[in-house]
């Protein structure tokens, strides 16, 4: 297990390397002169030249990349063009809001998804199965920003204690978490259902039943555990999708998270912020995937690293 963990950890190195290269190159792929953009539209020729020097844009590309990574490792992601504050400061608090939002949504979607999937599979072709699957299909097909708007329109505006926007109180979290978690719940429910159906038809389940084990036990002790294995992978991917999806949810509910920061920074052409936020979210996702693979391995000892 330790050997596996180390090998898996080593595998993340080239990925992180690639991620930093892409994020670093973002700045250079923008049409136009980065120094001009950073210095502002009304900057004089000398100011632009100074900015170019300060940003190290006169150095060879690999030196610039080295500086970028070197600074990033020390927590220095440059300064915001708009506010002049350090990018790491701007990101700091907002990062945790987004992580909280994505985490709550993941927990809710896993909880609802697994229960719905198990109910669906154990009562195959029943009314509840049909109902859950139709619901899941709609959940999967709905743009989350529209779902958010509809929830505000038809719930928040009619319920006194439910705020229409913001973050920080449990009441304020309900609608954003539903908005962000619905698609995930739908995906997990469908996955859980098919995985459960597959397991239920295997020999050891028949044996357990033949032994006279109670149906509840068969489902929850024998089948569920094995049916969960493929679902674990999806949960990790889901968390990533939710980190990205948070961009839309945060915009709809005016939550001051990292996603909203990115969108604002893009429209203000504040590229150091965009770079920093994208980098942090991608690295977090790499880390989460690493954790998922480890837990996957713990659940299923047969897995070999390919």
């Amino acid at each position, binding site marked *: 297990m330790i050997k596996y963990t180390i090998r898996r950890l080593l595998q993340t190195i080239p990925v992180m390397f690639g991620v930093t290269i892409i994020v670093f190159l973002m700045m250079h792929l923008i049409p136009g002169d980065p120094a001009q953009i950073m210095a502002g539209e009304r900057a004089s020729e000398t100011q632009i030249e100074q900015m170019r020097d300060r940003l190290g844009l006169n150095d060879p590309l690999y030196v610039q990349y080295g500086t970028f990574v070197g600074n990033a490792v020390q927590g220095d992601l440059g300064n915001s063009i708009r506010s002049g504050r350090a990018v790491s400061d701007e990101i700091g608090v907002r990062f945790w809001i987004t992580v909280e939002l994505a985490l709550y949504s993941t927990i809710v979607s896993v909880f609802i998804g697994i229960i719905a999937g198990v109910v669906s599979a154990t009562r195959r072709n029943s009314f509840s199965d049909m109902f859950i699957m139709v619901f899941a299909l709609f959940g999967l097909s709905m743009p989350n920003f529209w779902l958010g708007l509809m929830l505000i329109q038809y719930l928040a505006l009619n319920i006194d204690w439910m705020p229409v926007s913001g973050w920080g109180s449990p009441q304020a979290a309900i609608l954003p978490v539903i908005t962000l978690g619905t698609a995930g719940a739908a995906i997990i429910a469908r*996955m859980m259902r098919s995985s459960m159906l597959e397991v239920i038809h295997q020999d050891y389940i028949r044996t357990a039943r033949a032994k006279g084990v109670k149906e509840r036990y068969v489902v929850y002790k024998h089948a569920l555990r094995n049916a969960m294995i493929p679902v674990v992978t999806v949960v990790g991917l889901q968390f990533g999708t939710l980190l990205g999806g948070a961009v839309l949810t945060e915009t709809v509910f005016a939550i001051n998270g990292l996603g909203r920061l990115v969108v604002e920074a893009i429209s203000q052409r504040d590229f150091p912020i965009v770079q920093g936020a994208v980098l942090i979210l991608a690295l977090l996702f790499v880390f989460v995937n690493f954790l998922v693979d480890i837990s996957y391995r713990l659940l299923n000892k047969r897995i070999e690293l390919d």
Partner: protein
Amino acid sequence: MAETTVRHAPKDPKRINPYLENFKTAWRKLRQNYLAMAGGILIVFFIITAFVGPMLTSLDPNMPNVQARLQGPSSEHWFGTDHHGRDIFTRIIHGMSITLYIGFLSVAIGMVFGVALGIVSGYYGKAIDAIIMRTMDVLLAFPGILLALGIVAVLGPSINNVIIAISIFAVPVFARIVRGSTLAVRQLEYVDAVRALGASDFRIIFRHILPNIMSPIIVQATLFIATAVLTASGLSFLGLGAQPPTPEWGAMLSAGRNYMWEHPHVALFPGIAIVLVVLAFNLFGDGVRDALDPKLKA
């Protein structure tokens, strides 16, 4: 040259094309799946609407009409009017072609590159495989819509840049699936046999491997159109895709946001349009998956 003569030779009634038979069986299965057929019929209906619809509507989708601002649904304006007095029904009909254009084109581009990279990776293996797949891993490290967001941030907001962004987003998804299938097929004996007969790599890939891995590609393509439509409307909603006054549904939702509290219809109908298109592709894609590859899971 030998091949052309075979193709033009009179057909032996006993000689059947196994690939074609495979799809015939799948089609038979698909036809019995009512939900999938409903999705398929909806897709055909949407495509026809995209082509014919704009000719049938009498109103201009982009012409403001101040007198008719924010009217609720009526016999004159089925879905009501927006904050510029434009007929929402007309705008949704005109938006259909934009939505389908983005969906089909971005998936087609992503599929071509993804399939090419996946086959090369799986077929040649070793260093080529390692380089391609690690690159795909890097692309997959950007969670969800974030990669598309970053690309559009760099390229600037426009429909074509959204297509580029979604294509790049799709490439690793196809590459991974295709690589896996190629690895499985490459080991089969018949591939060794055609190689022993002197077939080139190119011929083996196109004539013998590609036809055998079509199923997962088709399934993924159908389902990814749904993802593409959702992503594109999301980017437009954020102001990073189609720009006003383009009648793109995500952009319509974004513009309607400020008026929806008192006039819910401005946000209701474009959203329903998105849901229906995505639902149709999901329904059809699910059916295609069940018909072509029952082993694949949701």
